[in-house]
Every structure is written in structure tokens, then in C-alpha cells.
């Protein structure tokens, strides 16, 4: 069982290393994640929201709906823990 798991792990690692060829280099300012909507968030954060911290303004204003979903996830996890570990007295 452990040999089988080791073979699968080595195969997956080899496939992932084969896919590293298309990845951007380290610190490239023109790589794909930093191109389309991220410069707009960086440049307009002081004039649209009065917030110097870009991470908070993106998290709570531009992507506020995702943060609502995340708060629901952690609330549901807390409720699930409370329901699972209740002992009848």
C-alpha cells in the first residue's frame, strides 16, 4: 500500500514539474496575474475608497460579496462543531 502511494506521488510530482515550463519567472511585473484588473485596484484605491491599504479595500469593498461567503463558511463550521459534539445530559 505504501509502495503504491509512493509511486502515485512520484508520478504526480513528475507531471507537475513537467508543467513548470510555462510558469512565469520570479518577480515579473508583466506576468498574467498582475495585468488585467489588478492595476486598476492599485491606482484607484485612494480616490474611490479613502483607504491606503489595498488589501482591505479589495477584500471589503471591491470583492465584498466573497467576504460575505467566507464569513458564512466559518459561521457554518462553528455551528457544525456545536451540533456534532452535543451530549444529551
Amino acid at each position, binding site marked *: 500500500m505504501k509502495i503504491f502511494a509512493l509511486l502515485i506521488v512520484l508520478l*504526480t*510530482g513528475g507531471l507537475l514539474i513537467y508543467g513548470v515550463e510555462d510558469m512565469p519567472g520570479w518577480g*515579473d511585473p508583466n506576468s498574467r496575474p498582475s495585468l488585467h484588473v489588478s492595476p486598476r485596484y492599485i491606482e484607484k484605491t485612494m480616490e474611490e475608497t479613502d483607504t491606503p*491599504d*489595498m*488589501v482591505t479595500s*479589495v477584500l471589503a469593498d471591491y470583492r465584498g460579496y466573497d467576504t460575505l461567503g467566507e464569513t458564512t463558511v466559518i459561521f457554518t463550521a462553528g455551528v457544525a*462543531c456545536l451540533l456534532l459534539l452535543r451530549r444529551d445530559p
Partner: protein
Amino acid sequence: MVDYLISKYNYWIYIVLMMVGFYAMMGKRNLMKKLIGMNIFQTAIILFFISTGVKKGGTLPVFMEGATRAADYVNPLPHVLMLTAIVVCVSTTGVALAVLLLIYRRYKTLEENEILKSIR
């Protein structure tokens, strides 16, 4: 092709960490060790994602007076997405620990083969 792989050696580190977590999830028999393997896997994914936003010569994504161009700041978008991922990781670990407590109370062991044997 080989010198592409040698110059992008940071991806090797992420792949090694991911594979360590993956082997722990599949190859170990104790349920608690599988849970720790899942945690290692999630940490490796978070590390990989944040590293795609680094820019050469960029600083912290907090607005400063002298720098107005977009190339002066590190990309804030992966940081935001990974905040959600960290919260999801914590929630999953919490619920999984609660389920492990219930399994231990019912079967008196946390080894996978003994649990499967006492189910059949």
C-alpha cells in the same frame, strides 16, 4: 528545456511540499496523520499562490506618498484570495477534529484498517 527548469527553482520547493502533504494523506494509516497531511497540502497551495504576485522592486501593498504607478506595489489580489483560503482551511480542520472525536468514541481506535474491519 532543462535550463528553464533550473532557473525556476522556486516551483520545485512548492511541488516538494505539496507531494509531502499528498503522501501523508494517502500513505499513512492513522486518521490524525491524514488530517495533518491535508493541512500541509493546503499550506503549500497558499504559498504557491501568493508567490505569483511578487514584483521586482515592489513594496508592501499600502499606499505611500511617493509611488503612484502600479509597478511599485506587490499585487494585492492573491493576498485577498488567500485570506479566504486560510479561513476555509481552519474551518475544515475544526470540523474534521470534531468528527475524529466522534469516531474515537464509537470505535475506540483511530487506525484506518481496524475501523474498516469492525465495520464489516
